[in-house]
């Protein structure tokens, strides 16, 4: 489960303190968000959407919608991979690029993902006027943002941890940069990258469902897909359609798990860098076994290997023999550094002036105060949720994890549930709230963690199941009582795993707040007070300045909580509680 670093996790290995690069990145990101919002405001408000494709609640259309949704996921995945290969590699190989790229990605991770949708959708519509391609791109872009940062940070870290001797062997045998990338860097990072990809994709279902139906400036845009189907079902309060949608999603995720996820992970086993064949159970997949045994597919894979060989050995990207003169120190290097720094300073002062101008001249201070207090309410929700989930899932997770036969059943189910987009289930909760007239501010809260809680469960299960047997036996042997056993052995033992799960769950909850704090069912509309609801409401109104303020506030709050609570806890768990 060590690969399980989803949103908010990957940057944690770096130092505990933010350095000034983080601050610069934060400033620039906030600046860009505000700028985008500002540009959006300038655009003509009534968009030309062309002919709206009508969504039908007929279940016969659902397979087609599901396919569209899956396609969006795959396109986004492709771009995330491209982004990862380019920027993560660049950061890993160049110090100057690293100082910019890594803090940037770190900050971008804490921008609420659906916030990207609110901000960019207008821009994309402007790019492709009169067609649905704009919103389509915006939806894909949102999925991209839910995957790319995480994948890039993970890839960057693994590329940097390629053993020195492997790199030296690459140098010694004259591999070109291109060959080295495909022969050493990519294969070495592949198991981690795949896990990361798969986990990001699981999280991505949530966002794809949310981003297909977007209301902006009092105009609803529906892209054909499961997300729009469910939005329509909610609007017309059609319980049966909701059932169909949940069933379809269930099947889609099952198929994706069996046909894509498992085979790829099983295939990636061969790239694990351990030099010793271990006894631990390897990931297996019936599909991979089948493929290995089919003659035609074996033939196909040989051909693919051959093509890959050609690709890696493209002639013009081969290394040239080293010429016998000292690599010259560039005289321009100094000027470039100087120019670079000047540029950076200009950029930062520009952003500062712009932000100052926008925030303090166009917005009264009371608004900022208001947004801040809304942010605190959402933060309080997140904290309460984590505590409640911990109290529920830690004992259950430990109970399950210590019984390997139960764990084998529960683990895949929990992973499956984590992938299932929880927003499909929101209507069920809303119906209950409406029916029993429950307090909205309290009962909307659990929605935020509906999908993310499973991360806590399956991480705790993983932690408990790798607890060394001899330690448990020592505890029995010494006759430790219940509390002593938990305090001295079990809690410290699962702590690193729990923290990993909790951080992921918190990230998920912040992201979910944007859709969870405003929920509807038919004509009922429940609005809780919180920052998420604020962003949604402003998006609906099309007030871009306030959207940017809301997103910026959430970004800053998430960062503060991460640096003050989660990162120190994560470091502590790494240093003190890791069982080797």
């Amino acid at each position, binding site marked *: 489960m060590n690969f399980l670093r989803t949103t908010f996790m990957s940057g944690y290995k770096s130092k505990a303190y933010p350095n000034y690069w983080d601050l610069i990145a934060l400033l620039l990101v906030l600046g860009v968000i505000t700028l985008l919002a500002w540009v959006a405001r300038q655009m003509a408000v009534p968009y030309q959407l062309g002919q709206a494709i009508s969504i039908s609640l007929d279940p016969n259309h659902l397979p087609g919608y599901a396919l569209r949704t899956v396609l969006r996921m795959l396109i986004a995945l492709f771009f995330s991979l491209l982004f990862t290969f380019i920027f993560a590699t660049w950061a890993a190989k160049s110090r100057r690029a690293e100082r910019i790229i890594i803090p940037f990605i770190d900050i971008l991770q804490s921008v609420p993902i659906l916030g990207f949708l609110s901000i960019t959708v207008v821009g994309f519509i402007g790019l492709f006027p009169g067609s649905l391609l704009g919103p389509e791109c915006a939806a894909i872009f949102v999925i991209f943002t839910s995957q790319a940062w995480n994948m890039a940070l993970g890839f960057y870290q693994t590329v940097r941890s390629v053993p020195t001797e492997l790199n030296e062997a690459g140098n010694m045998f004259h591999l070109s940069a291109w060959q080295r990338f495909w022969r050493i860097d990519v294969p070495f990072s592949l198991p981690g990258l795949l896990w990361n990809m798969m986990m990001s994709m699981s999280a991505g279902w949530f966002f794809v469902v949310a981003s297909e139906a977007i209301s902006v400036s009092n105009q609803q845009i529906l892209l054909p897909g499961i997300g729009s189907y469910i939005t329509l079902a909610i609007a017309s309060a059609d319980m049966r359609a909701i059932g169909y949608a949940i069933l379809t999603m269930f099947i889609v995720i099952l198929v994706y798990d069996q046909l894509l996820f498992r085979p790829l992970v099983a295939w990636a086993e061969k790239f694990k860098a351990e030099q*010793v064949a271990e006894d631990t159970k390897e990931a297996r997949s019936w599909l991979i076994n089948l493929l290995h045994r089919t003659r035609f597919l074996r033939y196909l894979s040989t051909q693919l290997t051959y093509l890959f060989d050609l690709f890696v050995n493209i002639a013009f990207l081969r290394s040239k023999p080293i010429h016998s003169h*000292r690599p010259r120190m560039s005289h321009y290097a100094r000027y470039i550094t100087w120019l670079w720094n000047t540029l950076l300073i200009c950029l930062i002062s520009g952003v500062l002036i712009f932000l100052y101008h926008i925030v303090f001249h166009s917005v009264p201070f009371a608004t900022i105060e208001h947004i801040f207090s809304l942010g605190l309410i959402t933060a309080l929700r997140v904290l309460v949720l984590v505590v409640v989930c911990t109290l529920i899932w830690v004992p259950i997770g430990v109970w399950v994890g210590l019984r390997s036969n139960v764990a084998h059943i529960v683990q895949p189910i929990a992973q499956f549930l984590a992938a299932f987009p929880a927003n499909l289930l929101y209507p069920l909760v809303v119906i209950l709230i409406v029916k029993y007239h429950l307090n909205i501010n309290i009962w909307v809260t659990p929605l935020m963690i509906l999908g993310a809680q499973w991360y806590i469960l399956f991480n705790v299960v993983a932690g408990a199941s790798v607890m060394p047997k001899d330690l448990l036996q020592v505890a029995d042997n010494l006759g430790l009582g219940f509390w002593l056993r938990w305090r001295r052995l079990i809690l410290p033992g699962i702590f690193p795993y729990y923290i990993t799960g909790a951080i992921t769950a918190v990230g998920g909850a912040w992201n979910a707040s944007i859709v969870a704090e405003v929920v509807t069912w038919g004509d009922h509309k429940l609005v809780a007070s919180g920052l998420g609801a604020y962003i949604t409401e402003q998006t609906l109104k099309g007030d871009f300045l306030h959207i940017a303020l809301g997103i910026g506030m959430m970004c800053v709050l998430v960062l503060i909580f991460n640096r003050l609570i989660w990162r120190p806890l994560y470091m502590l768990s790494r240093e003190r509680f890791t069982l080797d």
Partner: protein
Amino acid sequence: MQDLIQPVIATSPLIEVVNVHKSFKKGDRQELLVLEDINFRMYEGEIVAILGKSGSGKSTLLRIIAGLVQPSAGTAFYRGQPVFGPVRGISMVFQTFALLPWLTVLQNVELGLEALGIDRNERRERALKAIDTIGLDGFETAFPKELSGGMRQRVGFARALVINPDILLMDEPFSALDVLTADNLKSDLLDLWQTQKTGLHGILFVTHNIEEAALLADRIIVFNSNPGSIRGELKVTLPHPRNDMDPRFRNQIDRVYTLMTTQPLAESGMREGHQVIDLGYRLPEANVAEITGLLETLNAPENNGKMDLPDVADTLMLDIDELFPLTELLEILHFAKVSKGDITITEAGKAFVEADILERKKIFLLHLKKYVPLARYIYDQLTRHPRHRALEENFLSLLEDYLTEKEASRILSTVIEWGRYAELFAYDYNAGVLSLENPN
């Protein structure tokens, strides 16, 4: 190194290293010198060993010759041409094999050919031949993780030899293997070399194993540590195959030990034949149990307080990387004296080893305070502090003035271990605080 042994054959050298210095930057201002003024030549048809303790910079020198690392000053030449990057014609075998785990044996061997742009069919043919030569046939389609250590290093050799190199560099090629496997591989390598099957014109390797150097090499270059420099060199003229029980061979080994333990006159700082060290000295990584064990062996009736170092290494089954830190610490603490390849226990050492557990601690405490300036310094600082506490970082940053970050933290933790054993001070791992108080 002034007295380079002149070669009999006056051809131009294969490799020539001239005035090479290497220092690594640490922090903004400071530099750490790892290689100082290295000069040597290697000629056609020679096997040369570079012998030294770990951390003596010998691997760095090998990498400078390979073109993987740039020297800070001076130049390495390959056949008269200065080396500025990996050169075609020089190949290398790595300590941990450096095989790509996701490639089969065959693909791993083909890697170097691929980089040279050789076409697929010729690549395959040459790789298969190399695999044959090195005794790996039957394993072409295996992945490295299916192979034993010895077989993996064979893949390393096949990969290095398939590109028909002129010179083979080896970085501790046998140190990750068990003794039997290593012996087997060494004799196969010598076979290949002597039957001229490889087209190699020279082999240069780095090792910390004296026997290995004497078994393979025609010439042994002995390295000093801190900073790495050449201490001297020895020619080994015994014909191959060499037998490690042969008295002439044992004699060679004795010569190496003598060369390694005799203090050159230039090295001053000797007092009454014992080493005097300063605050930033690179204390050896040795623990109390180990030196006690060594002293007990020395003090055993059959040894009578004095032993030949090769015998000590044999009896305790230690290689020089393990043995020399122990002898160094014994010397520093004045528990034993080392000279000319012999080690002799002192009176204090005798008293220490014959005492009971508590008495031993007292003697150790006395010597630690007296002869290890760092321990004494820490103790003084703690005594002066009003609450008798100090942060570990303070001492760490002090040490980092002299040493690399990694080395500084290793030395501090070594000295903390000694100090705790002697009950000179206490240490709280979580807080990183040193103190005089005992835990309550």
